[in-house]
């Protein structure tokens, strides 16, 4: 029992970080109608941003997360302005394919740039706080506990921002109808830029939170990137709340799955396949996901 509660607590922590990443992906999708195939590499970039902020600038580890988010926000804004912006004009004929190709190109670019610049060997930033949190049967390293707490703070902040601030509501308005939002005086192009920047910042924050728990490596974004796709499809593409619940769900299920499967070699391969299978089934059976909003429906 203790073993499984431990697994589910660990799953919950990882799930929260997945949720953070998936929330960014789904925010970008809901506003820009673009699936960012480079999201995993932005997560990687966030991890390294925090690592170098801590190592070179000497900021405290928790502030490293903030530095990573700010850096990735700026990166996202620049990338959106330079590369994604043509989607909204008539210069691009097939917008879906264009977006997939350029964001996929971003992954190739950043992953290999990471290999060249950061080196192929894994790096570990200092822990947020050394030691282990013990409460009865629960044992959780402080790193994971703090990562989970920060993830919850960021996610609550995001939910508050989207629901309560005028900027957040403007983003929501654009996600529902670009033209109607423009009619009431919202500049959709500005919202696209902000949404992509925020989405990138969330990926970067997730990467920075994970950095002390798992080591950093240039292709660390590959697996969480795929996980984030699964989560946003599961939670309903475009639903930030759905992506949070989907993320926690997937984290716990995978955490527990490891405990249940015999034959570790085969089990490891098939735990990953399980997520992909889930994605296929959801796309076929219920393309709006568990919490999909009607206006995000598959065209």
């Amino acid at each position, binding site marked *: 029992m203790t073993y499984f509660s431990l697994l589910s607590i660990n799953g919950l922590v990882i799930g929260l970080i997945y949720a953070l990443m998936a929330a960014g992906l789904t925010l970008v999708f809901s506003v820009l109608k673009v699936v960012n195939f480079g999201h995993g590499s932005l997560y990687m970039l966030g991890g390294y941003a925090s690592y170098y902020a801590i190592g070179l600038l000497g900021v405290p580890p928790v502030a490293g997360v903030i530095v990573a988010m700010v850096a990735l926000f700026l990166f996202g804004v620049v990338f959106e302005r330079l590369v994604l912006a043509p989607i909204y004009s008539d210069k691009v004929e097939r917008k879906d394919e264009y977006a997939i190709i350029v964001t996929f190109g971003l992954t190739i670019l950043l992953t290999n740039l990471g290999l060249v610049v950061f080196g192929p060997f894994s790096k570990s930033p200092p822990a947020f706080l050394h030691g282990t949190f013990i409460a009865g049967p629960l044992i959780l390293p402080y790193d994971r506990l703090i990562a989970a707490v920060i993830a919850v703070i960021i996610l609550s902040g995001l939910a508050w921002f989207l629901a309560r601030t005028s900027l957040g509501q403007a983003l929501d308005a654009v996600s529902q109808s670009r033209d109607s939002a423009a009619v009431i005086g919202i500049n959709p192009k500005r919202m696209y830029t902000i949404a992509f920047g925020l989405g990138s910042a969330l990926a970067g924050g997730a990467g920075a939170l994970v950095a002390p728990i798992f080591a950093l490596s240039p292709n660390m974004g590959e697996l969480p990137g795929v996980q984030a796709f699964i989560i946003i499809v599961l939670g309903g593409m475009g639903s930030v709340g759905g992506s949070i619940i989907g993320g926690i769900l997937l984290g716990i299920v995978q955490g527990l799955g490891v405990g249940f499967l015999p034959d570790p070699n085969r089990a490891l391969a098939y735990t990953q396949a399980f997520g*992909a299978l889930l994605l296929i089934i959801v796309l076929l059976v219920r393309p709006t996901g568990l919490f999909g909003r009607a206006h995000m429906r598959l065209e």
Partner: protein
Amino acid sequence: MHGTFRRSHGLRALLLFAAAAAPFVAGPYWVHVGALAWYYALLAASWALLAGYAGQFSFAHVAFAALGGYSSALLTLRFGLPVALSIPLTVILAMVLGALMGALVLRLSGPYLALFTLAIAEIFRLMLVAEEDVTRGSLGLQVPGLFSGGSDVPYYYLGLGLVVLALLAMNGLLATRVGLFLRAIREDEHAAQASGVNTTLHKIVVFVTTAGLAALAGTYYGHFVGILSPNMVIIPEMGLVVAMAVIGGIESLPGAVVGAAIVYGLSEILREYGEWRFVLLGLALIVVQRFAQNGLFPMVERYLDGRVAPPGKSRVDIENVPKMEGEYVKPS
């Protein structure tokens, strides 16, 4: 238009001649590189038909290639079939599975289709890794060769022949009404359907055709290289195929072939630069897509023929044009 000589046709003939003559001047290493490039050329051209012409952006193309490689290898190794039988059987198997996938994804488009096919490819790769008893997992499966003697020259010409035949076959298909229908589906599936195009049939046809060609490429690769591993299906491998097709010209099948030859050739020439090559590849992919969406080869051809895109066409500055109608919503 027919019968008149175009310089772009001269370019194609010249490129074909150069490809056929290359083994006479190049050393064995570059013949080997060239023979591998034909594998990618087959994949890139058939993917260009699927994604560029029919608008079905699939990430599962390399999975079909791996399916081809493994299936032909296992048929010869386990059941003792001659390659003359295992290759056709493999292609038929891939076409059946291609039809199945085409039928499954009928309702999916754009990013949904891309995610779906990505998941299919991942599952297939993980199966290849996990089912070690059959596939030997990450150790790799040894595959018998096609030709005796150590030379790669026969493989080079086989690969080149396959590429030329595949191009002729695909262009033949595109020259019929099917080509027109595929483009109609790409531009607007619902409008095509309303105009009487059997979209279901044609989408399945394009999946069947391209799955068969991808599997053929995979069998060629397997019997040529002599070892297969699940790494054939990793995402960067698909990225390579996408980059080749997009850089060469996603809507031009010869363009995709040229793109594959150039990208693969460059990646060998610049080998000493290590990962920088792929940094460059990612950058080239973004830049080409950003500034020359139809790829570089059609641009060269257009330049040779003295045809420049008419100014103003689809270059309207949308920001300064008052919008007349509401948001365009595809009827669902």
